[in-house]
């Protein structure tokens, strides 16, 4: 069966799932997955039966928030926002390998009650089927708070979501994956607002000098290890381009700059610290 047909069939299943649940609150970041889920929910259920809820903190990039608001406005989705304080939790700030569990516990611990006060008993997130293959301790917190993951349950892969997002006219369809900024810090390196801001400044500066597609600035104390799309490596290793890359990252505040020779890979620091396979 052609991929487009499979994706459309999954979307029909998702619409049926949403209809059966009546009213849903979407844990919403403006990333590829949650944006798609919010838009399908809005189209399926109508404006009054869907709310998208954003949790904001220092680990949530400002650029991502802007995209979240843009999509919500463009598709007429009601939005609520709340502040999360995961950095104030020493268990999170110590940056253990299950850091995401403490973040999501903080998020869902605030978001689910907020949804209920607005009459939404069903809370969903944008976890997809591909995510289930990686190390995702945050998923446990979602289960503990009875947050449903219909995209994963119905077998949506990232490719499915991108294909359907394109079809629906979402600006996120080709947006790179965008996990929280804390994912740029190796496990065991404390998460602080200053370090997150440093990484965010460096990534924004690299976008400004023309880095497109996947991008991560991995924090290694004084050193920034930059991961770009593998197809872009040849470009950024050329001396003139390397000079622009270096200048951008140094201006952001890093003393040393390195380019990863393998290029971007999701969960790169999990591999470096033996949490997942190379």
């Amino acid at each position, binding site marked *: 069966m052609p991929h487009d047909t499979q994706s459309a069939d999954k979307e029909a299943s998702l619409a049926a799932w949403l209809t059966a649940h009546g009213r849903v609150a979407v844990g919403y970041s403006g990333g590829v997955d949650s944006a798609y889920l919010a838009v399908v929910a809005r189209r399926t259920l109508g404006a009054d039966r869907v709310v998208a809820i954003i949790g904001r903190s220092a680990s949530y990039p400002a650029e991502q928030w802007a995209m979240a608001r843009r999509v919500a406005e463009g598709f007429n989705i009601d939005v609520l926002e709340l502040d999360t304080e995961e950095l104030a939790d020493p268990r999170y700030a110590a940056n253990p390998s299950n850091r995401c569990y403490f973040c999501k516990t903080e998020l869902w611990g605030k978001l689910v009650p907020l949804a209920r006060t607005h009459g939404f008993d069903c809370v969903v997130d944008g976890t997809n089927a591909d995510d289930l293959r990686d190390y995702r301790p945050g998923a446990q917190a979602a289960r503990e708070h009875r947050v449903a993951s219909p995209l994963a349950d119905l077998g949506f892969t990232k490719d499915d979501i991108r294909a359907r997002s394109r079809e629906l006219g979402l600006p996120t369809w080709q947006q790179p994956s965008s996990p929280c900024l804390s994912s740029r810090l190796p496990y065991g390196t404390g998460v602080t607002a200053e370090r997150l801001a440093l990484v965010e400044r460096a990534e924004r500066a690299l976008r400004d000098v023309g880095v497109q597609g996947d991008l991560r600035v991995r924090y290694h104390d004084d050193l920034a290890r930059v991961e770009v799309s593998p197809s872009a490596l040849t470009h950024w290793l050329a*001396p003139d381009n390397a000079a*622009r890359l270096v200048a951008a990252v140094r201006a952001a505040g890093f003393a040393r700059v*390195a380019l*990863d*020779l393998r290029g971007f890979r999701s969960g790169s620091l999990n591999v470096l610290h033996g949490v997942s396979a190379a």
Partner: protein
Amino acid sequence: MIVTGRTLEHDTTHDDGDEVRAEGTRAGLLHRDRASALARALEHTGLLCTVEARAGLALLLCDEPQLVRLVSADARGAVLLLAKQHGFTHIAVEFAAHVTA
């Protein structure tokens, strides 16, 4: 070769200080050995550089003429293979002071 204190620093969170320092030293020596071996292997391919080991990350420091060699995808592929053979999960090239805007 440069050996960082990262592994030692990480291990000092354990209770038994002497034992941990010994483990850290052994780990540091292991990193240094791997870095040295990788640098030698790279030299055999014609790439002259210093290798700094930070746990699973090999950091190459080379001058600009050497850096230009890495623009070739084939050259990068060979470097990646050697890094993997020497036990590194990640390899990056540092843009040193000579690479300035």
